[in-house]
């Protein structure tokens, strides 16, 4: 049951779009910064596979410029998967 947090940097001018796209993803919460072009994404998935799929989905969003993992609470398998990308 992994929990991760990320700092997400949208492509220029796409902060709102990215926020809406992330909101549509399952197992995700998004917290926008009030005064910078940056979002916090919190993921809370039932298992490692779901986490891996979600991570791929997030990184493939067109409005996503970069996604930096900040915090991770997960089993060994999930960590390996994340590292492998």
């Amino acid at each position, binding site marked *: 049951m992994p929990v991760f947090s990320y700092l997400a940097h949208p492509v220029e001018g796409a902060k709102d779009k990215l926020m809406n796209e992330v909101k549509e993803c399952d197992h995700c919460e998004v917290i926008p*910064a009030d005064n*910078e072009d*940056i979002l*916090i994404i*919190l993921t809370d998935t039932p298992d490692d596979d779901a986490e891996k799929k979600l991570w791929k989905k997030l990184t493939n969003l067109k409005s996503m410029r970069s996604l930096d993992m*900040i915090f991770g609470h997960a089993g060994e398998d999930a960590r390996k998967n994340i590292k492998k990308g």
Partner: protein
Amino acid sequence: MDITRRKFIKSAAVNSAIATAVALFPGISFSAWTNKEGASGQILWEKTPCRFCGTGCGLLVGVSGDRAVAVKGDPNCSVNKGLCCVKGYHSIQALYGKDRLTKAMVRKNGKLVTVPVKEALDVIANKMQETIKKHGKDSVAMYGSGQWTIPDGYAASKLFKGCIGTNNVEANARLCMASAVVGFLTSFGKDEPMGCYDDIDHADVFITWGNNMAEMHPVLFSRMLARRKKRKDIRIIDLATRMTRSGQAADKAIIFNPQTDLAIANAICYEIVRNDRVNWDFVKKHCSFHKGKTGIGYGIEDHFKFKDKAQNSSFQEFKTFLKDYTPEKVAKISGVSAMDIKYLASVYGDPDKKVTSFWCMGMNQHTRGTWINNLVYNIHLLTGKISTPGNSPFSLTGQPSACGTVREVGTLTHKLPFGVVMKEKAREKAAKIWKVPVKNIDPKPSYHTVEMFRALDRGDIRFMWVQVTNPMVTIPNLKRYRDGAQKKDRFLVVSDVYPTPTTDVADVILPAAMWIEREGFYGNSERRTQHFEQILPAQGDSICDTWQIIEVARRMGFEKQFPWKQETYIKDIWNEYIQFHDYPAHRMAPYNLLKERSGVQWPFVNGKETKWRFNAKYDPACEQKGFDFYGKPDRKAWIWLRPYEPAAESPDREYPFWLNTGRVLEHWHTGSMTRRIPILHGSMPAAYVELNPDDAADLGIVNNSKVKITSRRGSIVMIASINGRGRPPRGMVFVPFFDEKYLINEVTLDAFCPMSKQPDYKKCAVKIERV
């Protein structure tokens, strides 16, 4: 995993991301994050001012059980409006360092041993009485802090000045704010800024004088940047002696040679007069001209004495005086082009622009600190840009209660909570409120901070009690004073929350309750008094600094003066203290209101705070329409003729570099708290010496190589930083002082401003060698 633990992990995940974002973007906020629950159930959010700098940001601390678990900015606090800096967001972690002092210790047979607190308090009281009996009342001293709460400083002042009868009370704010105080008093007759942080929301131009706000006052800097983002014509101009993050973010960065800010300020005035940009209506009605002594020395020798003598002057004499400061002449000594000086004068002189000047240590830690404060006021007075929204000469403070405690309570040798010891009426008032005979209060000031440590070295002082500060890192020319403190027959008591180089040389250590582990008040840069409750239990045997003083006072026989109960003593002290300020120019808010609000600005009269002083539109103490500079007998602000004079020590052939010292964003002062916060320590783990890349190349020094810095007083070896966070000009190095492993103050010079007695940590001569 149960649901509670899962919520806690999610909360930790988001808080970590917020902390990282804050480190990347100081001032960033996430108001959508409204987590209410944590590991052990509901989190209760309690308000408090931040523990660190003088900005006075409001925080909401999340408490779960007996532990602080989260921090967010207080949206109800007008100072920061919900923003915090990286230190604020991580502030609660400073409570939980592994080596927190939780037991009292007394040195026995040369070794510090744990003892019950009561025994340590007995030792302190007995030793103080024994020292007074043997060496007289002026052989004992208290050295406190701008991080003292208001009740701490008040209790210390009452015990030492009122009961014991010595004026040996000083505080580390002498090292950071004394020049600002004397600047205010000499120009306006009243201490503390006439404006407030709301000036940021009204100004068109911000000019920072030797003030790296991006790192030292990041929330206020963020407010400036936010203002600029809203309006394209807003400008930030950074006048500094080295390139910093503030300079990089400014619209224009102007680098000047150390000490020449005096000449630059006069050159700006020269241009304002030459171009007839003087606000004649304001100057004629509200200003008078004065001059003082010149060639006033630097205080390097023991027992140095100086007293200025004000003489009346005139605009005509001022105009003649300024002839020595044409932009062309000043360009030669300052390194600033005549064009840039004229540009600055045009900005200040533009009647359609509101200008706010900010400064802090660059102007205050200066052997002519009082003068440069006067000179920047001169600019604002000549142009009438003062005491109105957006027009503000604004001296920022470095510590959370440098204003509230040191300046308002008066924990400096010459001060009382109202007035100065030299004035009979002030002594009478204090004696009446303190219930002591008026003859107890000595009419003669004793030692200012540097001289107090000299007296400890000489043996004139034998007993010193240090609270909430770390002088064995911060006193300039440190080796002399550390050796002095360890001499035979010297007795040092230190109250602190962590081991430091000062507790290392202590004879008694008292563990102190930290910040929200006790109730208190701070007072910030904009005359805002901020109350905080005891939110957490004190750790181990630690006790509040105020209560430590009360316990010792009672043991010395002053029960009558310190009668308060432990349940209500903070409220009782507040109610006693505000009697000193019960007049329109300084009336303070009542206790219950302070408990409710995130700070209240004084003068607080008829239920109203005062944002701008000396302006009848806002200030209830004004007795005439328009402006009323009621602090001076002539009810005018004083424009001073103050010349440029060189630094106490300048680079020469043997020591060819300026040494400049200061702080960094991540660490508070000597790092005794912030270096226990893992993320801050990890971000900035060790001090370094910044070099100009061309100087480094000439000396064969590369990044991270070892460099020896030597002055006439000492030397230190540290790691080089080239093109790092800051970039000094050629001929200067910069060293932050947060790291006790590198005691840069063994190298600095104990010269000070003869008027304010504040040392200059920004200028001495050193040589640099590759190791």
